[in-house]
């Protein structure tokens, strides 16, 4: 393996932005078609009305809310990897944090569509924003739905700023190493960054502060999402563990999505020496941790439902694994609480194919988790006469699949047009070149230092 140096990192970064192969454009076309289907289905829904969905009474929240929660969850890995791991000084984050931050932003952008979709009349969506209107009508700040709007828009804004700040030194690299139109665009984006002592001083202070702000924010966002449910008194929703449980679930799904993207990406873009098996192995270990937390929450919910003696709670928790949506429940349990445990086996952490499959299964499981929580509870209200069931309509299914098209389209456009590996930060992890003992480190060397075999 070639030793890494500052110059080689720059070279690798530029390499990722070279003119893509034809297959890239083919995939882009397919994703565009999915996007088109997404917007066409949405247009159809607007034209026909909400009757084209499977929503009704009693199940008024279905695929859209499930998918919204799913995409917000996906977003969490980005902030986890970029902010929390920065504060925790985990060295494995540098190679992968840029792509995870991009995942955050694109996932949030995708998630943001779903409340509008769910709302039906999206043109009055601005009613939920706090703005001074003539009628003095303000949103109800006691409602968790309004909290949600504030939390998600704050999260999107803060993530976007964090992302941009991180990109500036890398824009400067592109500015200094490109020509023509690209150079002009990068000159504007780099905004005159030149890495002076003064710039680094304020930049590093700001960057750390951003990490410190993003960490409580990321926890609050999915807590607030969970409170959309937990603030009610519905059995299966109203439970105190919901906030931490949702945060852990969000991180689990986010990590899985980042793995799903990174494993093929490093191969296609030939970044194996930057995003090494060690980086992915560390993610796998992190996945075990959050999966165990999610599994803990599953078990504790059951225990307390049984212990409480509350017959409504007991009913909903017996209905989930045995009733109409039993398959949803079992997919959730197997994919989220069982499959990730395979990462305890070293082979599964090293074999990227296995890792890829497990990451996809977790993604599936996390979508079903939200579906399980939302639909099963709504379909079984307190009184049997208010029971009902829900089935996803073709419009909802198209929109669900289309949202993946939208998300992956944004990701793919990003990796070929903006620096998807954080060149500057990776350089910081290398030993600075010195006249004496000038030994550049490779990611593998860093990895070896971490392995436990070293004994003095």
């Amino acid at each position, binding site marked *: 393996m070639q030793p890494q140096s*500052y*110059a080689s990192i*720059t070279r690798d970064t530029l390499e990722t932005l070279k003119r893509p192969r034809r297959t890239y454009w083919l995939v882009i076309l397919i994703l565009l078609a999915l996007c088109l289907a997404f917007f066409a289905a949405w247009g159809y829904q607007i034209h026909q009305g909400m009757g084209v969905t499977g929503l009704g009474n009693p199940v008024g929240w279905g695929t859209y809310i499930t998918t919204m929660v799913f995409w917000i969850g996906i977003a969490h890995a980005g902030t986890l990897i970029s902010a929390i791991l920065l504060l925790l000084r985990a060295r494995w984050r540098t190679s992968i944090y840029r792509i995870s931050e991009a995942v955050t932003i694109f996932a949030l952008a995708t998630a943001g569509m779903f409340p509008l979709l769910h709302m039906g009349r999206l043109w009055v969506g601005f009613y939920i924003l706090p703005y001074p209107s003539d009628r*003095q009508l*303000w*949103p*109800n*700040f*006691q*409602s*968790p739905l*309004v*909290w949600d709007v*504030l939390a998600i828009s*704050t999260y999107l*804004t*803060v993530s976007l*700023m*964090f992302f941009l*700040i991180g990109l500036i*030194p890398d824009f*400067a*690299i592109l*500015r*200094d*190493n490109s020509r023509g139109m690209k150079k002009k665009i990068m000159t504007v984006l780099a*905004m*005159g*960054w*030149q*890495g*002076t*002592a*003064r*710039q*680094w001083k*304020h*930049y*590093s*202070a*700001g*960057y750390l*502060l*951003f990490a410190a*702000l*993003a960490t*409580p*924010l990321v926890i*609050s966002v999915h807590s*607030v999402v969970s*409170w959309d449910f937990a603030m009610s008194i519905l059995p299966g929703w109203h439970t105190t563990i919901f906030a931490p449980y949702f945060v852990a679930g969000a991180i689990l799904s986010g990590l899985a999505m980042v793995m799903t993207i990174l494993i093929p990406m490093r191969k296609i873009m030939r970044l194996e020496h930057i995003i090494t098996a060690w980086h992915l192995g560390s993610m796998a270990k992190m996945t075990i941790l959050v999966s165990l937390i999610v599994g803990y929450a599953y078990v504790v919910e059951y225990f307390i439902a049984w212990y409480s003696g509350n017959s409504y709670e007991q009913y909903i928790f017996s209905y989930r694994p045995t009733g109409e949506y039993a398959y949803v429940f079992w997919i959730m349990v197997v994919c989220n609480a069982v499959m990730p445990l395979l990462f305890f086996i070293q082979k599964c952490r090293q074999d990227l194919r296995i890792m890829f499959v497990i990451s996809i299964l977790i993604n599936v499981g996390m979508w079903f988790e939200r579906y399980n929580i939302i639909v099963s509870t709504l379909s079984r209200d307190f009184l049997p006469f208010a029971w009902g069931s829900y089935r996803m309509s073709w419009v909802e299914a198209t929109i669900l699949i289309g949202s993946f098209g939208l998300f992956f389209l944004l990701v793919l456009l990003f990796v070929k047009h903006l620096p998807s590996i954080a060149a*500057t930060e990776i*350089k*910081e992890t290398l030993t*600075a*070149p*010195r*006249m*004496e003992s*000038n030994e550049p480190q490779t990611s593998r060397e860093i990895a070896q230092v971490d392995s436990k075999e070293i004994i003095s």
Partner: protein
Amino acid sequence: MKRRIEECGVVGSFAHLDSFIEAIYTIRAEGFDQFEIFSPVLHEDLQAFMGEKKSPVRISTLVGALAGLIGAGLLTALSVLIWNMVVGGKPIVSIPAFMVPGFELTILFAAVATFLAVFYFAGLPGKLSAGYHPRFSNDCFGIYVKTSQQQQAQIKMLLEKKKAQSCWLVPQEETPSR
């Protein structure tokens, strides 16, 4: 790139951090304190040249956070008082419920303030310095000593003695090789 012609100085480009730092100390010791340093990375050894004072970005964050908190308190409390109606069995001004908007807006304003402060204090957006070279974002460290034309030769010699990879005068006589 247009560069101001009245500026005058010497640029040294270094491939190694230790010789770079030595050069900075030498330049300082010789009494030249009008200089700019460029680095492709933030390295802790360079912190000595960032000034003793802590970055004022922190203060902006604090101010932003307080503004967000107070703003959120006013927004939530005053807006419910306009329509003085009990909803969902909670008091009109129910502090636990308003903690959430308060928290979110605190973070939002703090982050926006931090973002703007970083740009302001780091001088972004701005023009590139006359002594900047594209390699300073890639793999070289650079120092640009601003000086009079008479002293250029002396400084150039100093930098070269400190193992600068290449040295050139500003205004530029020739484009250094990339």
